[in-house]
């Protein structure tokens, strides 16, 4: 197993946002993560990549305990990550943004890092913007930049946080192809996405998070058919929390929902 997580918890004040989560992801497999808004999905990624410290639990990367390791250490150990709300280095060019990952994340020397960064930009279709300031990019290109940077770290574990939102029907298959390719190259992938049909194209297993806890985990189709899972999705719609725009049609899994950027 590339990643195994046992009993991971984190709370803010009195609010438990990630509650006793355990999961495992093996090399060359992808875990899809779904859950209503505010379920704690992004917080879970923050715990996995070291941006946040866990209150309890244990995170193992390739069998090594990294629970106390810093974000930078984890990245160097092979964790790549995209942010739901893009965090570009605004004053640097797109190419330089990716170079940071190639140099510091993957630890490449100048020449190799340059080639790797160009390759990553080519892959995500951002190469023609290489010399533009990242701060000048539109949202969609910012998301592409997030993915390019994460790829530049040569990750063994890739954490994706809602990168498909806003893509057109033509662009979505390209993204799915990239994630597949990364997975088939032996990288473990965790992909949070509200666009469930995109997830189904790649995910070998599926996990549904609700109120910080694992509600269901297993075969993607089985998880989506789980009455409890359907209940949370419907529930959030009924309570007007957003995240679901239509009631699922029979036999269609879950609806494709626009996550919408949160400030």
């Amino acid at each position: 197993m590339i990643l195994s997580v046992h009993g991971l918890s984190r709370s803010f004040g009195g609010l438990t946002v990630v509650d006793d989560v355990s999961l495992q992801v093996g090399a060359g497999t992808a875990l899809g993560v779904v859950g209503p808004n505010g379920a704690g999905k992004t917080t879970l990624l923050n715990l996995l990549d070291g941006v946040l410290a866990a209150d309890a639990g244990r995170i193992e990367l390739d069998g090594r305990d990294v629970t106390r390791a810093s974000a930078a250490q984890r990245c160097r150990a092979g964790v790549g990550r995209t942010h739901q709300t893009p965090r570009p280095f605004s004053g640097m060019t797109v190419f330089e943004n990716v170079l940071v990952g190639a140099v510091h994340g993957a630890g490449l020397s100048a020449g190799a890092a340059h080639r790797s960064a160009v390759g990553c930009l080519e892959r995500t279709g951002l190469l023609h913007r290489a010399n533009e300031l990242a701060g000048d990019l539109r949202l969609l290109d910012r998301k592409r930049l997030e993915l390019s940077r994460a790829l530049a770290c040569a990750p063994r574990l890739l954490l994706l946080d809602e990168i498909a939102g806003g893509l057109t029907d033509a662009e979505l298959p390209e993204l799915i192809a990239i994630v597949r390719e990364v997975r088939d190259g032996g990288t473990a992938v965790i992909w949070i996405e509200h666009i469930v049909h995109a997830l189904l194209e790649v995910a070998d297993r599926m996990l549904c998070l609700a109120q910080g806890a694992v509600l269901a985990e297993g075969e993607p189709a089985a998880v989506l058919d789980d009455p409890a899972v359907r209940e949370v999705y419907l529930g959030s719609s009924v309570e007007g929390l957003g995240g679901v725009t239509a009631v699922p049609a029979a036999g269609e899994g879950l609806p494709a929902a626009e996550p919408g950027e949160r400030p």
Partner: protein
Amino acid sequence: MTDVPTTPAPTTAPRVSRTTAASRVAAVVALPVVLLLAALPYLAAPNVTRLLVDLFTLVLLATMWNLLAGYGGMISVGQQGFIGLGAYAVLVADLFGVNPYLGLVLAMVAAAVLALPTALLVFRLHGGYFAIGTWVVAEVYRLVTVEFRAVGAGSGASVTGLSAVPPVLRGAITYWCALAAVVVAIGGVYLLMRSRLGLALTAIRDEPTAAATLGVRVRSAKRIVFVVAAAGCGLAGALIAVDSLRVQPDSVYSVQWSAFMIFMVVIGGLGTIEGPVLGAVVFFAIQQLLAPYGAWYLVVLGAVAIAAALLARRGLWGLVTLHRDVRLLPTGHRLRQDR
């Protein structure tokens, strides 16, 4: 971007370029210019080199503050702590009979060593608290310094070890030291910003969290910059001491230094190497031209700062490079497609 490739995939891989036409010219011109400046004590009157010592000291300070704030994202208003420390290092060297010029090296080492525990303290603070924190630490340095009778307590002391050196020679040596300091500082920052550490620093300045998730060791990069900037400011303080031969705590530890540094860097252009140099020249010119009119120069400084904030958001150097790529010391990367 004008040349978006709509044609089939390019045949050759893009090339990374790190120079500009202007920077290639600058590389050729730099050595003769430095040599000419080095020969200046033989060519010009001592009062000219004396003025240039002041200018070089300002350039050194501006370059160091820009390294901290423009590249490291650390807005410090406490660099006068290290300036004062550097000045007193010269006094202490003098006290022990060491050549005050060796005190310049001592000043850098002392400032760098004290910067380490200072960093430990102030790095716990962020934003405005960091700024105030550095100021408080600088005040503490001053308060501790004036406790020592041997260096003149509250009124300071004079550097006596250079009285045997003829004034003209002394002026020349001080000038050469200041020139060397500026060349090393600008060259050093240039090389540093083109290195892996420079890439890390720029990333940290823009988005520290993202930098960390891309493998950048944020703490250690900032610590290195803090120590280097402290050493540079210590050296500037020592230059002030050997130039004026007198060290007064209220003057060398004055928060005014921070105001000057911020002014020079912001006027010239934050986050560039050329900008702070330009800012220092402008500041120096204002200071010299308006010297006879007392406090008026502060009014003019304020007016210039307001004008720059309104008209030149990216400083004077930002205006210069607005339409033409005349960057002399580029640190970035440009991808070029040869066809």
